């Protein structure tokens, strides 16, 4: 039994690892990284608090500190024309020019020499400004065509503001000429594989996860684990309550329907359940909101959230009753959405066991109908229900995402939606891992329940 469970959990680990890795790597290859917004792109105001270059320096310092300057993975594959150092070039427009030049002309040493010379020229022009230089300078900085570059530098050298600028311009034009002569246009077709060792972002991340450190959220810079733990309580309360209520209702309903005398009820209930099943959760949840928590109709329940902070410690019951008030609507929505399917399944399985031989014997003994159903048929119908319940958990998780978002419940589901919208990847990865784990636990519990409910299983393993 334990061995079986262990095996299942072990099988789950590769899936966990693969998905986590995929999300992590995908998230890091997207443009725009954490903190960039805050440091590099402040909203301009009526005055600026700092200069672009000093912000860039601070940003670089932060990147170094948080390890974001490291390579992404154990090895990296890139085009042989594009050197690694290019990644750290700022600003991005200059990086783009160098990348394009690298792909077009393939000779990195020549390009980098050109770049260095241009930087010097730019600095010199800051000291000896020249009228009309900015246009040519911009061409020099952003154009990727050798003839355009030559034209720009020719224009610049004709301005002739100071000998220093002139001599630098000559140097630049020499570098351009060198690039023109020594170009190798096909270099970019050749792949280059670099081995980065364990000093990479992925390794740090993986080690962190294994030691229980899920890093911090991009959005709130709170530890991810803390955020999830905060939401988990509410989500679990909702899930558990809705599951219990749904199961009890479904059991009782199917027992009622199974009775011969209550045929009319069955004829009424089945289509009704079918109709409810057709209403999507989204519509159902919002209809409940509009009908039962709206000052224009009936305001029975508080609309949003899950209570708020209470300064004085309330007793357990007070606390629970307050929470339940807030939970009423989400709970009703979740129960209504899942009830038809579960009832249908239990009813079918009950029907099957009512036709089985042992029930017929029981009936022949003269037991009253409700006892036949409860004592004999139900017990045997319970086995498939275990499977249904364990299959039901992921569906419930998906359901709670929407419910939490609509009713503004601070749970894991809403956290997921918010982090998707804010591209908050550390949180996203952690929640996915968490959901996977939940599913594994559900399977394990289902197995244990089987073991407990069906004596034949015990014999098999014994």
């Amino acid at each position, binding site marked *: 039994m334990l061995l079986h469970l262990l095996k299942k959990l072990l099988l789950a680990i590769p899936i966990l690892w693969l998905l986590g890795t995929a999300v992590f790597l995908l998230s890091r290859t997207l443009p725009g990284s954490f903190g960039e917004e805050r440091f590099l792109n402040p909203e*301009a105001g009526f*005055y600026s*608090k700092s200069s672009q270059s000093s912000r860039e320096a601070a940003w670089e310092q932060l990147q170094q500190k948080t390890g974001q300057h490291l390579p992404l993975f154990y090895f990296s594959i890139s085009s042989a024309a594009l050197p690694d150092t290019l990644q750290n070039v700022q600003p991005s427009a200059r990086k783009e020019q160098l990348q394009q030049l690298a792909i077009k002309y393939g000779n990195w040493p020549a390009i980098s020499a050109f770049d260095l010379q241009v930087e010097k020229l730019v600095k010199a022009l800051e000291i000896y400004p020249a009228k009309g230089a900015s246009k040519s300078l911009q061409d020099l900085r952003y154009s990727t065509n050798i003839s355009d570059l030559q034209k720009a530098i020719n224009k610049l050298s004709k301005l002739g503001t100071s000998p220093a600028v002139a001599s630098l311009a000559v140097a630049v034009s020499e570098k351009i000429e060198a690039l023109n002569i020594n170009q190798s246009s096909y270099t970019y077709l050749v792949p280059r594989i670099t081995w980065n060792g364990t000093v990479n972002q992925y390794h740090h991340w993986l080690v962190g996860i294994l030691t229980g450190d899920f890093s911090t959220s991009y959005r709130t810079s709170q530890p991810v684990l803390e955020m999830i733990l905060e939401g988990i309580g509410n989500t679990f309360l909702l899930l558990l309550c809705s599951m219990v209520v749904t199961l009890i*209702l479904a059991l*009782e309903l199917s027992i009622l329907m199974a009775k011969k005398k209550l045929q009319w009820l069955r004829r009424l209930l089945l289509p009704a359940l079918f109709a409810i099943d057709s209403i999507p959760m989204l519509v159902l949840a919002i209809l409940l909101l509009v009908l039962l928590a709206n000052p224009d109709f009936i305001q029975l329940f508080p609309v949003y959230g899950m209570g*708020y902070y209470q300064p004085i410690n309330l007793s357990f019951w007070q606390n629970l009753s307050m929470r339940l*008030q807030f939970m009423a609507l989400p709970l009703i929505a979740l129960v209504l959405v899942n009830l038809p399917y579960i009832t249908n399944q239990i009813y079918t399985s009950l029907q099957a066991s009512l036709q089985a031989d042992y029930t017929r014997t029981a009936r022949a003994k003269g037991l009253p109908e409700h006892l036949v159903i409860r004592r004999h048929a139900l017990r045997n119908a319970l086995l498939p229900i275990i499977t249904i319940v364990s299959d039901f958990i992921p569906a419930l998780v998906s359901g709670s995402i929407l419910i939490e978002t609509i009713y*503004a419940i601070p749970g894991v589901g809403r956290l997921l939606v918010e982090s998707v919208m804010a591209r908050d990847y550390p949180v996203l990865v952690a929640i996915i891992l968490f959901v996977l784990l939940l599913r594994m636990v559900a399977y394990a519990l289902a197995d244990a329940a089987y073991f407990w409910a069906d004596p034949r299983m015990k014999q098999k393993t014994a």
Partner: protein
Amino acid sequence: MRKIYTALTCFLFLFLTFCSQPERAPEEVRVRLAADPETLSPVSYSNAGALQIVNLLFQSLLSTDLGTDEIKPFLAEEMPTIERQDSITLYTYTIREEAEWTNGSPVTAVDVAFTLKVAKAPLLNNESLKPQLEFIQDIRIDSDNPRRFTFVCSGYASEMELLTGDFFILPAYLYDPENLLQHIQVSALSGDISELENDKKLKTFAAKYNSPNFGRDPKLLQGSGGYTLENWENGKYLTLTRKRDWWGNNTSNTQHLTAIPQRVSFQVIPDITTALLALKNRQIDVLESIPTAEFKQLKQQSAFLKDYALHTPDAYEFVYAGINTRQPKLSDKRTRQAIAYLLDAKSAMKVTQDNYATQTAGLIPPSVSEFYNNSIQPYSLDLAKAANLLRAAGWQQEQEGWFKIISGKKEQLTINVIYRAGSISYENAANILQQNASQIGIPVQVQGMESSLLSSKSKQHDFDLFFRSLGGNPFVFNFKPLLHTAYANEGGLNYTGFGTHESDRILDKVNGTVTSRQEMASLLKRLQEIMHEEAAFIPMYYIKERIAIHRRFTNAKISGLKPNYDVSAFTLKVEE
């Protein structure tokens, strides 16, 4: 059957049980925070809520008085004296004589020097403050008066006066009892500082200072402000208590230095709807940024209005449209004016702000009447004018739209509108423009995008038109980085490429040589005229803030500046 009924009744009973509201102490002010402050470090706080709290614990030399919306001396005795030399500017301050730290020792120039070191040194967590203080090169401490000192700053800009006073002063005795930073000179921290990274004492200090304690520990978060941190339950609440005998209460003639409420508690309620619920249940005393629809509803509930007063101060944030003048099709100002006539700021304002906004013609807030140019009429929806302007700019109307020959190529007038995804106000403004433009046959493509992508597109000038908002203030008007052509190259903050010779000249003057407020007013008014004429940077409307404050307090100092009220000034009404 019976079972179901019992179960159902139990269930309903539980739902409908009354919920008792706990009693509250009247002298405590309870404020909602949208997010946990995370760190209260005066050097590296990261959100607005944290700034509000740090403001109660620490003080800066200068700060805004929310009662009058003016810059006033806080820790400083008076505004600094300014002396301009060739390439440097000197700002001389004197710290108030009464000012003291929690342990009773006086605040001196040494503390200011220490703060500068922490802000500028390598290895420390100071990335957000460092760029802001880069222009301060040195500090000269008066040898006669330990409370008098001079900042030596490179260059000159009009906002420097504010910036030299706009950072929190740290207590050197508490942060660095071993004097680890004493041997470092402030002047050595400008330029290349890589050598210092190996400094042993600095390394020791960094190891201590970078620990989360310096942003969390009540024992370390002791400044010259009127409050100390009492309690911090992570993600739930923070409470501050007033110092028993705070120096600020003993000074004369300083109404802006206040610490009146006995306790201030900050409740972390991330969700605005939950916060509103808490407000309706009288559990919080102050709530700002109330959504317009809810605000309207609150206005009609007399029971609520009995306990709470609603305020709508004019905020200093405005929404504007920027048109990329570098696009050949948009380089003619008549084309841009035509687009401005299609923006329909009035409808955008009505739909998104429910008229809690003021339409504006210039970028100066209309509430600052001294500088606002009210002779300009803001652009309003006018299809006929737009079409005429387009014709005047050389566009030909054809079956599929407007066409013009630009440098030998026939081009169609299309507008690609970008804005930050998820923002309703920009989205609505874009939709309205799209609709109006389609009526005269201009296809508009609307694209909401992530803020990082939006920034890089605007920086690289890869757009036709964007919607953005800008936060301003009523005291510093240096628009040079925003509007001067020197900042119009790739990466610069002048995204639209606005600028004429005259506007550049005005911006230079405003930043440098203006002496009188009259001259300033005439320059700024002329600037607004030019901007209106050029129609590259088109201000649409200024937003009104929406706040509810409990009626038992007076002297709330409601302001358009964040955080919109001064919680330290809240005074209990005397019972009548």
